[in-house]
């Protein structure tokens, strides 16, 4: 049922954010430390476990799939309510940070590529394996 998927997501989100808050308190910072990341880990572990145990029905997957698909529109909504007028005064920092990150990482592609080429086992990938989705 669709609600199972949504409920699973809701549980993982709340549990992840709770862990993030607890971690923040433990370290003594006024922050949610990695909560969303923990939530994502829970979704991966939870869905893999369910898949092995009794399988996830298409309807259940739909409940998750909707929110998965709606995330770019939600990011648009996030963007639409930021203090852009205020940020524009320092806009160069954003453009430079983004652009230089790209340049630096692109320069590293050949190096890391070579690093893995010494291990032939890591090569010769098959076509993208059928994912259970």
């Amino acid at each position, binding site marked *: 049922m669709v609600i199972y998927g949504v409920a699973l*997501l*809701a549980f993982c989100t709340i549990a*992840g*954010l709770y862990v*993030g808050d607890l971690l923040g308190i433990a*370290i003594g910072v*006024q922050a*949610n*430390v*990695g*909560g*969303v*990341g923990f939530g*994502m*880990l829970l*979704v*991966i572990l939870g869905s893999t476990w369910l898949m092995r145990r009794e399988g996830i029905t298409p309807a259940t*997957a739909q409940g*998750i799939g909707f*929110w*998965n698909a709606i*995330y*770019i*529109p*939600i*990011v*648009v*909504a*996030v*963007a*639409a*309510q*930021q*203090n*852009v*007028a*205020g*940020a524009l005064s320092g*806009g160069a*920092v*954003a453009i430079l*940070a*983004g*652009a230089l*990150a*790209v340049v*630096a*990482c692109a320069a*590293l*592609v*050949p190096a*890391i*590529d070579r*690093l893995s*080429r010494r*291990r032939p086992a890591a090569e010769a*990938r098959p076509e*993208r*394996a059928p994912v259970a*989705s």
Partner: protein
Amino acid sequence: MRAFIDVIERNNLLAGFAVIGAIVWLSYLISNRLTRGRVHGSAIAIFVGLVLAWIGGVVTGGERGLADLPVFGGVALLGGAMLRDFAVIATAYGVDIAEIKKAGVSGTVSLLVGVVGSFIVGGAIGWIFGYRDPVSITTLGAGANTFIVGPITGAAIGASSELIALSIAAGLTKSILVMTATPFAARVIGLDNPQTAMVFGGLMGTTSGVSGGLAATDPKLVPYGAMTATFYTGLGCLLCPSVLFLAVRALLG
């Protein structure tokens, strides 16, 4: 007219869906017609969102962009912390642990180097521009990851909306640049095989940028690049507000 505005304000979340839907529709139209798909519709939509936030800020003099106009209260709800975290976490579904293993050593190394490297670059630029507090440096560093990691990290560690907007703009710059420049850089960095595409995806991380850029380079490479790139935002959301934030705090005292 009064009655219409009443209905909209009473059903603000639905109005938010309609407004964002219209923005996305318009953006994909621009993407297809004006850039022939070269710049991904999602990147244009986020840019339009930022422009509307700017207009909202100028019109009302407020700090919450479009959301300062009561008619657009639904946009605030839709892009608020609760649904934002919920939707981002939903993207983790379908990630198979077996797939993580398949990405192999090079994929893992490229992901770690990509997240930490971009974070350092973004944070260093922030430092050069005069930001000194750990929250600002971390948020900017996270923004240099992707336009999702920036706001998630900023919100988690209590950054100002201004900084979050900057971090989104940084991530957006990255996404658009990867999308448009990849075909030109491909030969220089040897990007012509699946293995390199996976390394590329892990280093760049912006899924929309990587899939758009690889599609323009060689469509056969898209799934390989996207496979590693999909782990990037999750890894960034995990590392930036935790280990990396603490590292910045320790460094700045």
